[in-house]
């Protein structure tokens, strides 16, 4: 069993809409181990980013209950100044959109330097400069000495994401949260950025939480996968198991929606309906039941829980036992090559 790095226990992150609080992350428990890439997968609106922001304590107007245990601290209970010591130092974060995530008025050197400065007050200016240069080289930015003095708008999206990565890893964090790091980039750049994260993972010995809705990215990068639906985790497994033996209907539907280049398909599989919005989320019973209406009510549990079916493989609700696609011929096996 690998060492635990981060343990999330019964985390509930709720947002206030009008007079009520609605949980975007609902009673979620999850562990991140050292040196592993944990992918969190789900459609848009499943609470993936809300979870990532909770780990960093970045929500300004959300109510957070439960525990986020990191080493011997509880991030969920930290005061702002304690939190500032952890952010950027022990936990680094890469954001979705590199185009808007950099301060337009600051030179690259100053932006990366700020992370260093905030956590090493004694570091001299020249040492900081050298470290920034070093980081820029590490993330594969050509002509780093020149780029250091450039402003964000002078760089391309891929370059900016590299700068963001340099910023996130500046203080050699133990945990790196990547919130859809490739969503805003075009496909060729996407694979470059993923390669870079993969390369850095080996160098840094850090745990990585990779949030994505791209199953291709998951297959390429992850060690373990948590599938999230409507604020809950519906299935956790290591990546091979998940692709070879997906159990939860949601996981199977997601996998089935991926176009397959080996087979001719007349139609892509589409999951019926949409992720319910926060206010309309059914808080009772199996949350996915509304999108697989052909499965009988009795197949679902009243209070579905995550249960271990195999060592390390957990599934929520019993409906997976009775689930099949309406058109049986459609489902193929997704065995990792």
């Amino acid at each position, binding site marked *: 069993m690998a060492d635990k790095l981060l343990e999330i226990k019964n985390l509930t992150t709720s947002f206030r809409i009008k007079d009520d609080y609605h949980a975007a992350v609902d009673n979620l428990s999850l562990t991140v181990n050292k040196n592993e890439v944990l992918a969190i997968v789900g459609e848009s609106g499943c609470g993936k980013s809300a979870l990532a922001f909770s780990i960093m304590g970045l929500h300004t107007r959300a109510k957070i209950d439960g525990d986020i245990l990191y080493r011997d601290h509880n991030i969920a209970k930290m005061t702002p100044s304690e939190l*500032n010591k952890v*952010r950027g130092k022990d936990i680094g974060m890469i954001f979705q*959109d590199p185009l808007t*995530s950099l301060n*337009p008025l600051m030179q690259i050197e100053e932006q990366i330097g*700020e992370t260093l400065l905030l956590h090493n007050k004694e570091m001299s200016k020249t040492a900081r400069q050298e470290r920034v240069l070093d980081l820029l080289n590490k993330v594969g930015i050509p002509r780093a000495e020149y780029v250091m003095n450039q402003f964000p*708008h002078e760089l391309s999206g891929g370059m900016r994401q590299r700068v*963001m990565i340099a910023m996130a890893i500046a203080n050699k964090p133990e945990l790196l949260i990547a919130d859809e790091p490739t969503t805003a980039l075009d496909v060729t750049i996407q694979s470059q950025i993923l390669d870079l994260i993969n390369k850095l993972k080996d160098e840094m010995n850090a745990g990585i939480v990779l949030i994505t809705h791209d199953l291709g990215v998951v297959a390429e990068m992850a060690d373990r996968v948590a599938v999230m639906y409507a604020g809950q985790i519906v299935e956790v497994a290591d990546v091979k198991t998940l692709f070879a033996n997906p159990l939860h209907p949601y996981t199977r539907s997601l996998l089935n929606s991926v176009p397959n280049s080996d087979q001719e398909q007349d139609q892509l599989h589409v999951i019926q309906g949409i992720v319910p919005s926060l206010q309309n989320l059914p808080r009772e019973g199996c949350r996915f039941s509304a999108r697989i209406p052909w499965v009988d009510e009795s197949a679902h549990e009243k209070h579905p829980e995550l249960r271990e079916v195999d060592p390390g493989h957990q599934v929520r609700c019993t409906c997976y036992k009775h689930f099949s696609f309406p058109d049986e011929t459609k489902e193929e096996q997704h065995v990792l090559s």
Partner: protein
Amino acid sequence: MWKFSVRRTLIMIPQLIVLSILIFVLGQLMPGDALSGQVGPDVDPARLDEIREQMGWNDPWHEQYARWMGGVLQGDLGESFRFKMPVTELIGQRIVNSFWLSVATLILTYIIAIPLGITSGRFNDTWRDQLITGYSYVGFATPLFIFALVMLWLFGFTLGWFPTSGSVTPGLEPGTFEYVMSKLYHLLLPAISMALITTYSTIQYLRNEIVDTKQKDFIITARAKGASETRVYNRHILRNSLLPIAAFLGFEITGLIGGSIFIENIFGYPGMGQLLVESISLRDYTVLTAVTLLFGIASILGALLSDIILSIVDPRIRIK
């Protein structure tokens, strides 16, 4: 940068030509001239016509314009009919007064607006913000000329804290310390009155910029780096929010030359605004055209200045 400034300055030339023609023609279109109402009723109208002929006022407008423009280009703006002195000299006296009044107003405006705008933006939708926004709405709704009169009545006449007219106590030697202090004393009340009323735009600008910048992604990045809330505000939010204010400065500087018609007239402060009103009512054409032309030049320069300031403070529009 250099090239851009030169290009912008060259573009100004046709603008200025059109402006000067417009001003000149509009001045000519006004009924009456400097002689009407200024001479005794027993003067022979034939004699007046003779004078007009002599002064060249009966020539076609383009000839008169050419003559006037020729003088302007050589720095000769003509002579004031009323003050019997060269217009350049007259404007020279007045522009200094207007300049200092506007500088004082501008400084007071920023002293009031920046802290209030920051508070309002940072704590938006709290009682503090509502209080400050309330003040700016009152400032927005109050007519300057009424507020200035109330200020003058209260602090000038009733309490007697400030002088009620003029720009300096008569009899003081220019250049002495007393003279400077007296000047400052005289412009304080008009400057405060104006600043209190006109500061709303800067407050609201700053507030909205801060509220807007607060929600930008790079602010989350800054927090994720471990920056404290104070640092996030001072280094990231404020710097980005001050951009439009800085750009606005160019236009504010236009006001330095133009002065304020209301304030100067109410406080009997001899500045450019007062000169403009006087020259209109007395048909003092040479002064009127010169002052209007100067205002025009000032606003064109102000726009140029705004662009230059913005290009200095915002790297995204830095001009190569």
